[in-house]
């Protein structure tokens, strides 16, 4: 039963209140404004005072507008008809195609019982050595790209999406620049995967609050595909916009902020989305690759900081390269023991040497005399950056490992590498 109220008591930011009875928490409502209808969600009940967040924003809402309660929380249609389609943040078609209303599913549903999860074990090969060798990506992982604006993070997302062997790709865009939206569309189309992609796109031109729904809608759909046995890759860009939308609502609701204006439950809110990444026992999986832009290139900013505590690692994108320091795949050890016996040793050994290179570089920049050892490290570091780190390198894991031995052999004698003798005996390439 739908109830209609036509007196809005207060409008503050994107939050309105009405006096109504029989309303339930998180219930959906439609506000009929003179600019068209907007979805709204109940966020607080105080006796008969109902507070709602309006997804199209409070701008232009008038006290005389009608509020229609739908009697249930937000739902989204789920079927194969979604594939190849483009929707906005609240699930309305953006591509001129028909509205979908078959099999409505709940969004923001309960979390998966940990007892029904399985340990992830399939490596997602990307052809990028900084990922495959040093921080392997794993099916069902949740992993953001940490970056500042201007870095090619969307290109990196698209490249991984095309290379990954998944059944379905879901792109959740939050505050996405229109150009970037077109870039994704074109790239996925050229790659021939558009017909198994679903877009939920909120662009920079849309009201900020509407981006709040994007992760939930994308992940609810992903979850249903996964339960039906499909391997789903969800791309979420940019989660910082999502967090900022939450901050806006929290401030309007006069919640006590915890850190730089962000609400105290930022961690919980982000976690409840990222934790949707899962490998279902006996069924499909959800892998989440996100983008978290770091305001002021500051990793201790609350959004990247809380994200880092939630996700299973992160790729630091800086100067067009994935940085070895700070980048981390926490699931790598699930897969890198089964690739090649030297994989782990190369992974740790080369990074330790690269760290030593950075120290020598610093000494050099301060004008100190370089020892033989420093000189070796400098040669090594430059080779490493050129032949491993550069994003244009696109080679399979095994070739990258071979390359690693080759680089080390051309710079060092074996015992300088800190690698175990057995591996050195097996893999050391004696180059003249």
């Amino acid at each position: 039963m739908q109830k209609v109220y036509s007196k809005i008591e207060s409008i503050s930011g994107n939050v309105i209140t009405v006096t109504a009875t029989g309303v339930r928490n998180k219930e959906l409502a439609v506000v009929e404004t003179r600019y068209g209808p907007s979805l709204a969600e109940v966020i607080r009940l105080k006796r008969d005072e109902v507070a709602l967040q309006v997804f199209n924003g409070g701008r232009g809402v008038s006290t005389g507008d009608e509020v229609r309660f739908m009697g249930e929380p937000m739902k989204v249609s789920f079927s194969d008809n979604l594939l190849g389609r483009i929707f906005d943040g609240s699930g309305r078609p953006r591509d001129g195609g028909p509205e979908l209303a078959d099999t409505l599913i709940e969004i923001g549903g309960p979390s998966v019982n940990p007892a029904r999860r399985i340990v992830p074990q399939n490596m997602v090969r990307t052809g990028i050595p900084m990922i495959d060798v040093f921080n392997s990506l794993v099916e069902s992982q949740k992993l953001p790209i940490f970056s500042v604006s201007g870095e090619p993070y969307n290109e990196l997302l698209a490249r991984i999406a095309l290379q990954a062997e998944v059944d379905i790709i879901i792109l959740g865009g939050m505050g996405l620049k229109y150009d970037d939206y077109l870039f994704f569309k074109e790239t996925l189309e050229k790659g021939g995967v558009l017909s198994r992609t679903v877009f939920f796109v909120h662009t920079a031109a849309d009201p900020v609050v509407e981006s709040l729904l994007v992760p939930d809608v994308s992940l609810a759909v992903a979850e249903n595909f996964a339960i039906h046995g499909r391997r789903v890759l969800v791309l979420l860009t940019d989660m910082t916009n999502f967090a900022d939308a939450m901050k806006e609502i929290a401030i309007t609701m006069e919640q006590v902020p915890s850190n730089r204006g962000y609400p105290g439950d930022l961690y919980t809110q982000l976690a409840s989305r990222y934790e949707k990444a899962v490998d279902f026992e006996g069924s499909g999986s959800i892998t989440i690759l996100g983008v978290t832009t770091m305001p002021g290139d500051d990793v201790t900013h609350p959004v990247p900081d809380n994200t880092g505590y939630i996700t299973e690692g992160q790729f630091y994108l800086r100067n067009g390269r994935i940085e070895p320091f700070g980048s981390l795949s926490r699931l790598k050890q699930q897969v890198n023991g089964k690739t090649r016996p030297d994989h782990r040793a190369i992974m740790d050994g080369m990074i330790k040497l690269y760290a030593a290179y950075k120290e020598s570089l610093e000494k050099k920049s301060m004008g100190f005399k370089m020892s033989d050892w420093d000189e070796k490290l400098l040669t090594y570091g430059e080779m490493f950056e050129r032949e491993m780190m550069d994003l244009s390198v696109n080679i399979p894991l095994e070739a990258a490992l071979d390359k690693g031995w080759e680089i080390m052999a051309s710079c060092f004698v074996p015992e300088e590498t800190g690698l175990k003798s057995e591996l050195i005996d097996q893999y050391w390439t004696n180059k003249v």
Partner: protein
Amino acid sequence: MVSVEFTGEATMNEVCYIHSGGKRLKSEIIRINGNVADIQVFEMTTGIGVGDDVEFTGELLSVQLGPGLLGQVYDGLQNPLPKLAEECGFFLDRGVYLSALNETKVWEFTPSVEAGAKVEAGDQIGFVKEGIFNHWIMVPFQLGGVLTVKRIVAAGGYTVNDTVAEVEDEKGDLHPLTMVFNWPVKRAVKCYAERLKPSETLITKLRIIDTFIPVAKGGTYCIPGPFGAGKTVLQQVTSKNAEVDIVIIAACGERAGEVVETIKEFPELLDPKTGRSLMERTVIICNTSSMPVAAREASVYTAVSIGEYYRQMGLNVLLLADSTSRWAQAMREMSGRLEEIPGEEAFPAYLESLIAAFYERAGIVRLKNGGNGSVTIGGTVSPAGGNFEEPVTQATLKVVGAFHGLSRQRSDARKYPAIHPLESWSKYTGIIDEKKTEYGRSILFKGDEVDQMMKVVGEEGTSLDDYIIYLKSDLLDFVYVQQNSFDPVDAAVEPERQQHVYDILMDILTAKLDFAGKDEARTWFNRVRQNFLDYNGKEWKSDEFNKLEATISQLLADKKIGAEAYAEGF
């Protein structure tokens, strides 16, 4: 949070159920004001409406204590998750609460007292076999005064709910006892004779901990560190290797995937000492980050209550909580909803006292029957921005006995475990003579100084002697402080081996070495390091182990020309 108008009485921390949409949603009273109770709901609050009925139970939030806890995987409210999965499938449906213990399993009960015996709360009246342990059936902890056993059943098979004894209290009231009872999670169990000072080292088999910053049975320690520095891995290896009877893992507001690793791995791993699966000594309390936040707050208390229960049987329990910051954040969320006056970073003003009270529940105790039992608590802390100057880290540091601080710099450089050897500290005694460990520390300290200095004056401005100290410190760091948790041998090092290897290192660290120049010194140390690394990977006392040890001794003999002045006394 929900506010409820009530008639009659309400108790702080009383459990109630909201009847909404055909479901009963478990909640707890967290504030009472006049006839309004504020309650936190242990479930998602979607669909709750004004006017819904609330049922008050009169019971405080409690754990069920009895045989069958070991090997279980519970959520923060002690719902058994595998059982729940059988019932509800992939997802955690709201409003489904199952019994924590298997109610149909028959246990072989052996009485240990006779009718007429005088007993008190926490005293043993009989036992059942739970895995390798004698699981003592005890007089419920909340029964006061001296009780008289009126009746006790004969040895035989009983379920947890069968009455096994009847006791009479001082007032003459009779209490039937089963093998299970409830205990309010937020109250510490105190049915012991006295608390002792933690003095015995709790062996973790991690060199840096056992040697330099030890943990004691019945003690407390914390592991603060930025994200990705290795807190969880550290706790995972500790949970496998620590020499204790029982491990309780409280996965509090962190990733579900990490718990899954433990759930899947532990049943396959054998405890070398008992030959039984590790799962048989483990209880997992798992309230991960996407599970309801109020239950997360409860989860650490559920965990410690179970720990205290097994301590009361004379066992050594290790509770590992990951992460206490998520627990603190859960309190912050609740406090915010209650619109309490916020303290620093919006944490509630009472944060410090709650953290202190939680760690206070650790301890080694002498039981009334003369035996000892202990609960050791190790908690990770996840400081915002990796900065230890924040309320949770600071409040924790005030109360714990050891601090294992993880460093971003060390984890970035893949120096695992990334515990900072100089900044970390412990008040407990370790497995190696303190004089020797102090010497090792001083080498690390001096090496660090030389390293800092070299950054200013360069290598050429550093004397050969200083440079050698730096190389010694680097060696100690590389082959002893660092440890490879993914190497089958190096992952867990017995105390005996730690002592042996430390002595060999001491020989090198105290030696005066003869080098023509820095390059020769570096080359020699590289060679020693290489051999040591291989040595660390060999089985204790195997042929290869002995051979490498001989090689290392020979390398030292080649260059040693006496003892350093700074090594006087060794």
